[in-house]
């Protein structure tokens, strides 16, 4: 038989063509989706908010690169996942937090939660959420000292006060609660990237349009918060716009690795997040429960995946 090109042709298993979506592209989309909230954090809390987020990003990237260098692993910096973690961690901090604490948080997120468990795709809980919770229990006071929105020209953010949920939690002077419009736009106290519901919503819709996330978790999460508030006789709009619900529902709870695979599981996961959030908000001693709710549901994810399996074609449940 004639032998042509023998030895020069690539022989590999099918398929021989693949989609152009990559991990890097997905992470880039998440970063693009976070831009509106990033801009709003600067508008609301001033330049220090921007600096704090940038610090977290730089620290996360350096910790990842450093860890992988020391452990002689292939670098995964270019997949941008460390950048995403950095931005999300920054968004979960009060803008007045000392920079070194943000660096500690970045260490927890990247080294303790992500890399020690095997790197991207292997972590059992969301790195940014876990880091935030660690910081909250370690540095309770600076983590709950909330700068109030600076006026648009001023760069001082010395004025602090309670967040809307804090006011609600103390239950003393409910008349000082901000209007729902202020909440929706984000001109209230809180973690620097979580206050602007509209900015996060725009980002969330971008992620849905790009098919980076599916709607089930955000819908179930926000829907549960809404209905729970309604049943508890509170303003549902207030509850879905206040605190970290929008940030958590679209950007944190939808983390691939730590949320269920299948639609039913995702809905259960979202409902669980919503329920936990509202139970902590209304009956717990903390004013806000989004981080704890997502962390808890992260840990339950393998069990949810086990419970809500699907049938294969031909009818066998796997």
């Amino acid at each position, binding site marked *: 038989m004639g032998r042509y090109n023998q030895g020069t042709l690539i022989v590999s298993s099918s398929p021989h063509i693949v989609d152009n*979506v990559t991990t890097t592209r997905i992470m880039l989309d998440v970063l693009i989706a976070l831009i509106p909230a990033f801009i709003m954090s600067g508008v609301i809390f001033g330049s220090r908010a921007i600096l704090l987020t940038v610090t977290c990003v730089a620290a996360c990237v350096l910790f990842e690169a450093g860890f992988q260098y020391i452990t002689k692993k292939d670098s995964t910096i270019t997949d941008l996942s460390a950048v995403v973690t950095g931005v999300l961690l920054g968004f979960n901090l009060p803008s007045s937090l000392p920079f070194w604490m943000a660096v500690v948080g970045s260490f927890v997120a990247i080294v303790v939660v992500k890399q020690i468990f095997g790197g991207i795709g292997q972590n059992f809980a969301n790195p940014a959420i876990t880091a935030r919770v660690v910081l909250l229990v370690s540095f309770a006071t600076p983590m709950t000292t909330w700068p109030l929105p600076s006026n648009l020209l001023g760069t001082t953010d010395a004025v602090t006060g309670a967040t809307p949920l804090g006011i609600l939690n103390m239950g003393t002077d409910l008349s000082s609660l901000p209007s729902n419009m202020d909440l929706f736009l984000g001109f209230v106290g809180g973690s620097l990237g979580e206050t602007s519901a509209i900015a996060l919503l725009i980002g969330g819709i971008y992620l849905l349009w790009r098919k980076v996330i599916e709607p089930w978790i955000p819908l179930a999460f926000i829907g549960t918060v809404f209905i729970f508030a309604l049943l508890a006789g509170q303003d549902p709009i207030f509850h879905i716009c206040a605190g970290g619900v929008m940030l958590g529902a679209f950007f944190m709870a939808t983390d691939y690795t730590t949320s269920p695979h299948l*639609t039913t599981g995702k809905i259960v996961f979202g409902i669980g997040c919503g329920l936990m959030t509202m139970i902590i908000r209304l009956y717990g001693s903390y004013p806000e429960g989004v981080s704890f709710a997502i962390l808890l549901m992260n840990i339950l994810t393998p069990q949810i995946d086990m419970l809500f399996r699907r049938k294969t074609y031909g009818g066998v449940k796997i």
Partner: protein
Amino acid sequence: MSIFSKHLPAIHVEHYKYTAESPTEKMPVPDKVYISMVQHIGAPCQPKVEVGDLVKVGQVIGDTDAFVSAPIHSSVSGKVTAIDKSLTMSGVWDLIVTITTDKKQEVLEGLAPPQIDDKDSFIKAVRASGLVGLGGAAFPTHIKFNPKNLDEVDSFIINGAECEPYLTADYRTMMENSELLINGLKNTLKYLKIKRGIIGIESNKAPAINKLRAMVKDNPEIEVMELRSVYPQGGERVLIYETTGREIPIGKLPADIGAIVSNISSVVALQNFIETGMPLVSKKVTVSGNAIRIPKNVEAPIGTPISQLITFCGGYKRTPKKIIMGGPMMGAAVYDDGMTVNKNTSGILTFDEELATLPKETPCISCGRCIKACPMLLMPTLLAKAYDAKDVEQLQKLNVNLCMECGCCSYVCPAKKQLAFTNKLGKRLVMEGGKK
């Protein structure tokens, strides 16, 4: 499947059907043809000729008494110049009959339409025609057409989906041989006593749908069904589900749920045999890809080397780095272009270095895209983890054997993991009982 859809999961792939409007060109007879004695799933054929014999077009040159088999015919007239063992497509050594052609293409004397008057003579004719599943699986057609419970079969489904990118040979067949197709379908329904005939065609082949619909408007038993243009509509289990809504239980065959599926080209080749007595000796093949100068649909004698088809299509435009027999989703990459057109060859794709090089694998991020894409509703990412752990029990539990290797999971994976390949290996591991 999703609770919101009556379709199985599927993916969108680029079509790249560059040759859709190129009429089939019959290529000149090559100097030599190399006809493999392995042209179907089942027992290989034994050569029925010897070196030095003169053969004519349509003459049986290989056959066997084994049940799962189909005879092999000479595609040319000429002289048998060698019968030797060679490495075949599937990587096994087998007999190849080399025929040096005399270019006269003399047809075997006495070749006549077969006598068919009932099911048995029909099935006999199907075997005599040398037909195997031309879509790729190459399962002998006479066995497929004669299941034990034939009386329970109520649907004969013809696969005109041609869901693989690039390939247009089936589309050209539907346009160019529509009479043979419809008559072949009518004959099959008549002799197998099947009530309903369905031709499933993807919506991106509207001219074929319209043409065939017009031809069967007075035949209520035949329906031309428009399928979504998504991959893999042509997978047997997928096609049955999309056309009849029936699922084949694991371990059962299509006939068990009352369906027989056949490829467009198979029905056309069958009708050609019924009308002329000429068995399956040539194949319509799409030659395409970005390394070929003039992409074409070519009708080539079985046994023609790929290199001859390439020459007929103007040669290589760029240095080929990968040559695929079949489509890009399920076809096999060959290691040289001396491989030949077989009964089940539907396409020859040539890729340059850029197309041939797949991106590097990165870690799984558990995004679940593979799970959403799997038409068989498997969990490819979990299967890959089970394979990595060489966990045979888990592979079986996750039903790795249901995987049809359509490649949807690998296609959508952002980490570029070769999930379909892993499943192939996983199946092998299960077969060997995890001895490795």
